[in-house]
C-alpha cells in the first residue's frame, strides 16, 4: 500500500502545483491590460483624481508580485478582494451564486450519470446493431449542438408550445425543494443532454475496448453465459474507465454551465462571470476564473486518482 499512497500523494502535489501556476496565469494576465485595471474600468472619460482614488482603493500602487501574494492568500481563505464596479466584496457577489451553480451541476449529474452509464453499456453490448447506429448519430448530434441551441429548443417545446416548465430559472429564498427542482428542470435537462451524450460515447468505447481483451474471449470460449461474462469478468475491470469518464464529464459540466446559465438567466457563477466580463470588473473575473479552473483541476485530479485506486494492477503491486 505504500506505493499506492505515494502515487496518490504525488498526483495531489502535481494538481496543487498546476493550480498554483494557473493562479499565476490568471492574476498576471490582467497585467497585460494597456494601462491598469482602474483606467480600464473607469474608461476614457475619467478624471485623474477618480483613477487615483480607485487605484488607492484596489491597492494598485504597489508592485504586482506583492499584490499577487496577497490575492492568493486571500483566495485561500475565501476573500477575493472587492469588486471594481460595485465596491462590494467579490465573495458577496459570487458566493451564493457558486452554490447555485453547484446545485444545478449536481442536479444534472444525478440524472445523467446513471442514465449514461447504463445506456453506454447497453450500446456497447449491442454494438453494430441498428440501435447502436441510431445512438451513435443521436449522441454525435447532441455533442455537436451548441448548448444554447439545445436550451432554446427545450424552451420552445417545453415552455412555450406546451407550457410545462418555466423558461426562466429565477430563484427566490423561500422556495421548497420541489419548486426548486421544477424551476431548474430545463437548464438541468439541457446539461443532461450534452453530458449524457459525451459520457455514453466514452463508456461505450471503454467497454468495447475491455470486451476485446483476451481474458473475456477466454471466458466466452470456456462457455460462461453472456451475463456472467459481464458481471464477473468485465465489470470489475470496467470501474476504472467508468470512474474516469464520470469525473471528466463532471469537469465538462462545470464549464458547459456558463452558456446554459445565460440562456435560462439562472443566477449562477457563470452568469456572474459573463456580466463581469462585459462590465470589465476584473477582480470578479479573476475570482470566477480561479474558482472554475480550481473545480476543473480538482475533478481531473479525481479522475486520475479514481483510476489509480480502482486499477487492480496498481493496488496489488508485484
Amino acid at each position, binding site marked *: 500500500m505504500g506505493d499506492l499512497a505515494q502515487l496518490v500523494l504525488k498526483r495531489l502535489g502535481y494538481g496543487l502545483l498546476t493550480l498554483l501556476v494557473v493562479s499565476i496565469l490568471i492574476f498576471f494576465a490582467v497585467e497585460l491590460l494597456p494601462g491598469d485595471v482602474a483606467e480600464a474600468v473607469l474608461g476614457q472619460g475619467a478624471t485623474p483624481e477618480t483613477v487615483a482614488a480607485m487605484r488607492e482603493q484596489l491597492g494598485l500602487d504597489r508592485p504586482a508580485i506583492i499584490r499577487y501574494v496577497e490575492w492568493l492568500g486571500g483566495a485561500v481563505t475565501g476573500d477575493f478582494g472587492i469588486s471594481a464596479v460595485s465596491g462590494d466584496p467579490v465573495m458577496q457577489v459570487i458566493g451564493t451564486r457558486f452554490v447555485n451553480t453547484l446545485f444545478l451541476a449536481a442536479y444534472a449529474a444525478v440524472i445523467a450519470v446513471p442514465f449514461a452509464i447504463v445506456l453506454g453499456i447497453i450500446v456497447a453490448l449491442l454494438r*453494430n446493431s*441498428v440501435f447502436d447506429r441510431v445512438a451513435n448519430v443521436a449522441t454525435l448530434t447532441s455533442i*455537436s449542438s451548441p448548448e444554447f441551441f439545445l436550451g*432554446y429548443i427545450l424552451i420552445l417545446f417545453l415552455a412555450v408550445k406546451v407550457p410545462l416548465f418555466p423558461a426562466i430559472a429565477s430563484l427566490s429564498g423561500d422556495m421548497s425543494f420541489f419548486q426548486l427542482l421544477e424551476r431548474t428542470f430545463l437548464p438541468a435537462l439541457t446539461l443532461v443532454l450534452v453530458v449524457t451524450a459525451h459520457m455514453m460515447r466514452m463508456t461505450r468505447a471503454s467497454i468495447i475496448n475491455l470486451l476485446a481483451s483476451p481474458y473475456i474471449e477466454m471466458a466466452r470460449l470456456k462457455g460462461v453465459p453472456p451475463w456472467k461474462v459481464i458481471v464477473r469478468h468485465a465489470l470489475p475491470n470496467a470501474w476504472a474507465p467508468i470512474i474516469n469518464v464520470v469525473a471528466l464529464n463532471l469537469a465538462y459540466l462545470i464549464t458547459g454551465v*456558463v452558456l446554459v446559465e*445565460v440562456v435560462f438567466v439562472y443566477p449562477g457563477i457563470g452568469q456572474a462571470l459573463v456580466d463581469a*466580463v462585459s462590465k470589465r470588473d476584473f477582480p470578479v473575473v479573476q475570482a470566477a476564473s480561479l474558482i472554475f*479552473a480550481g473545480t*476543473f483541476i480538482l475533478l481531473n485530479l479525481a479522475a486520475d486518482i479514481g483510476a489509480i485506486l480502482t486499477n487492480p494492477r496498481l493496488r496489488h503491486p508485484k
Partner: protein
Amino acid sequence: MGIFVLGYYGFLIIASVILAYVGWRKWFLMVFALTLVSFVLGIVGGAPALRFVAIFAIVLAVAAMVSFAFKEFLVQIVRPNIAKELRTAPLTASFGMFVIFTYAIGGIFAPLIAPYGQAEVIAGAFAPADSDMLLGADQLGRDVFSRIIYGARNTVGLALIATIGAFVLGALAGLLAAVKGGWFDTFMGRVADVIMSIPSLIFALLMLSILGTSSWVIVVVVAIIYSPRVFRLTRAVAGNIVVMDYIEAAKLRGEGDWYLIRREILPNSTAPLIAEFGLEFCFVFLLIAGLSFLGLGLQPPIADWGSMVRENATLISFGDITPLIPAAAIALLTVSVNFVVDWMLHRSSGLKEN
C-alpha cells in the same frame, strides 16, 4: 380519421408487406416496428403527432437520397484509388461531405447568393417573412436570410483560421518536441498541461475581456487555447515514428531537424492529423459560437451566427423559430464534420469492433 391518417397507416402496412415479401428483413423490422409505434402514437398524440413523424421520415429520406447521390457523384469524378475508399463511406459521412460542400459554396459566394447586404436595413424591426425576405427581419430590420448566408462566410471563416492557427502551432511544437526531445520536450509538455487545465471557455472569456474582441485577438487566443490538443497528438504520433530505423538512417546521413520533420515524419503521420483537424475544427467552432453568443465574437454589424441567436432570442417566447435557425446552422455543420471524422477515424484505425 382524415385522409392523411388513413394514407399514413396504409403506406406503412403496404411498405412492410412488400419488404417482408422481398425478404429485406432488417428494413421490414424497422418499418413494421414504426407501424406498431405509430398505433400508440396516434392514440396518444392524434394526427399532429403522426404528421410530425411523417415529416421527419420524409426529411430523413430526402437527406439519405441526396447523400447517396452525392457519394455516387464523388465516386465518379475522383481518381480510382480514392473512389474505392469513398465507396465504403456510410451515408452519414456522405451527408456530412454534402453539407460541408454546401456551406463552402454559401460562404465563398455569399455576396452573390444573399439578396441584401449584411448590414443593410430594409424593413421594420422583426418584420414577418414575405416573398422578399424569406425568413423575415431581425431586431434592426435587416434580412435574416442574407445574414445567415454571410454568417457562413464570417463565422466559419473565423473558426477555420483559428483552427489552422491552432494546428500549425500545436503540430509544429509537437514535431519539434519529438525530434529534439530532452528539456524542450518536457517543457512543452508542461506548458500544454497548464493550458489544458483551464476550461477553454473560461480562459477565452478571461483573455478576451483583457485584450478586447478584435478578430485577430479572437484567432490568436482560440488558437493558443486549442493548440495543446494538437500538440499532444502530434507528439504521440511523431514519437512512434522517431524511433524507426529510417529516421536513424537519415540522422546518420547528417540531415537536419527540419528535413526530418518535413520529409520523414509528416508524410507518415497525415492520416491521424487530418482526422484531428476535423475534430479540432468542431471544438473551435463551438467555442467561437459560444463566445459570440455571449457577445465576445465578431462585433456588429458583421453577421455572426452566435450573436444572431442572442439578439433575436426574445422571439422564442412568442413561439417563433427564427433565432433557432443560425443555431441550427452551427449544429448542422458541426455534426457534419463529426460524421466525416467518425468515418475517417473508423477507417484509419482499422477498427471493425467485432
